């Protein structure tokens, strides 16, 4: 009984430390954006201010990098959702042996380090006379984000009753109509979810983007550069805004998902 009690206390302690480890960095980072100190910190507290948010808002370079990231993310979504869906449909139409080989090939970008994807894309396209920039960022990011879309669509397809397709065909629908009216509507939730995931993955990507960015400065590169060359709490203010936006987005998505499921 005593041993159990000690064990229990130790476990609760572990949970507390774990939670602190998880959240203290984010809280401190967020809090630092309200501190008047030149360098982002919470100790010592030199007075509460919202000046850093104003500074962030007025930073034209930040807006430029945000615009680049959004542009990239939109292009990525336009590529990865159709290609990932096609990959899932092709894969599920293959026979067992061909399928496991194709599967290994198709998930290989997930097992490739992000920097290698960036490097190999850069090398190939420079050979063809295309340098780093938005185009290459989109292409390099899409290479592995397609895998996520494919996996999410495949998971959804597993619950699909394919006799629905046959039923539609038997009722005289063309194969295109079967896809448009039966298969695609069934996949819709997975497509929306994977588009959301793709935006997130694209905007937060750093390792791959770094090599193919050329003269562009997407948001992650912008922040990383600031950290090295002149970190002020304005970067924290930006971080806090991004964090709040992603958390709200994630919660909204989760609520929408549960409401649909119910």
């Amino acid at each position, binding site marked *: 009984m005593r041993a159990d009690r000690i064990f229990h206390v130790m476990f609760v302690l572990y949970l507390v430390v774990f939670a602190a480890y998880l959240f203290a960095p984010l809280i401190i980072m967020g809090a630092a954006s309200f501190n008047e100190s030149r360098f982002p910190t919470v100790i010592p507290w030199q007075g509460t201010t919202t000046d850093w948010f104003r500074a962030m808002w007025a930073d034209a370079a930040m807006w430029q990098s945000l615009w680049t990231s959004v542009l990239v993310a939109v292009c990525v979504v336009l590529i990865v959702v159709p290609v990932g869906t096609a990959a899932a449909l092709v894969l599920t139409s293959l026979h067992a042996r061909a399928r496991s080989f194709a599967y290994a090939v198709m998930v290989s970008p997930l097992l490739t380090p992000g920097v290698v994807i960036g490097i190999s894309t850069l*090398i190939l396209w420079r050979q063809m006379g295309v340098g780093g920039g938005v185009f290459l960022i989109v292409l390099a990011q899409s290479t592995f984000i397609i895998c996520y879309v494919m996996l999410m669509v495949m998971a959804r397809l597993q619950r699909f009753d394919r006799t629905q397709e046959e039923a539609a065909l038997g009722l005289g629908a063309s194969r295109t109509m079967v896809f448009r009216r039966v298969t695609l509507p069934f996949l819709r939730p997975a497509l929306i979810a994977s588009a959301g995931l793709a935006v997130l993955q694209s905007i937060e990507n750093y390792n791959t983007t770094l090599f193919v960015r050329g003269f562009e400065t997407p948001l*992650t590169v912008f922040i990383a550069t600031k950290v090295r060359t002149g970190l002020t709490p304005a970067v924290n203010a930006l971080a806090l805004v991004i964090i709040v936006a992603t958390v709200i987005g994630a919660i909204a998505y989760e609520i929408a998902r549960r409401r649909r499921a119910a």
Partner: protein
Amino acid sequence: MGDLKNRFGPGLSTIFLILVLFWLAVMVLAPNLMMIDYALRPNLPPAALGGPDDTYSLSNILYLAGEPTHRAIFFKTIWASGLVAAVTFLVCYPIAFWMAQRATTGQLAIALMLIIIPFFINEVLRTLAWFIILAYRGPLNAVLMNIGLIDAPIRWQGNGGVLAAMVYAYILFMLLPIYNAIESLEKAQIEAARDLGASPWRIHTRVVIPHAKAGIATGFVFTFMLAAGSYVAPALLGSPGSRWFTEIIYNWFFEGGDWNRGAAYALVLLVLCLAVVLITLRLFRVNLTDVAK
């Protein structure tokens, strides 16, 4: 393929196949082949391209073997990535077990949400957070000095800082596979083991961990791979003495100006990661299908 055409007709199937082939050929295969080509050629001025010196050789890869600093950094990256994976496992295992076997539905929902939220946030921001905490005059040193654990501030940047931030960044990739694996273990098995007089240590080593080994292997593979290929944490939190292999690769490309050597180094990193993935999967008899979930 016949099945695809049967399902969606010739028009749509052709579009699907073109999309997939474009992806695999132009975005996956061709870049890697070109990278290998680069890695095996010498770095020549444009005028000498195609000339007598433009021959295939392993010299770029051998250069890595012969350069003591780079070689040391390469091996250090391997063992440090292994260390990151091991520490991440130790941090995650108890909570994964608790979530999978002990937590009520309500607790589980809250725990999952709390764990997932930080991972919606960008890796650069998470690293920035650690940058602030670990700063020389930052909160961690202040707290430790206040409670009297240390007398003077510690310079965390370097190996310690990189380890802390990497473990932090990859918790989810370790936790979810282990959680999924342990979750499929029947509660009755643990009860039976306890009933038979097994100690908690024995229950974990003989019942839970063997059952969860596929999940653990998956977690290891992903954490190792992400750590070995990470650039942002070592770049922001490292010190000159804690250089990471990816930083050397970056330098070849954007500071050293020798893309061929950079490509060779990237190729070595790729082969290393694939080897670790395949060996781990073979060792734990895990199928690739179970990994990518």
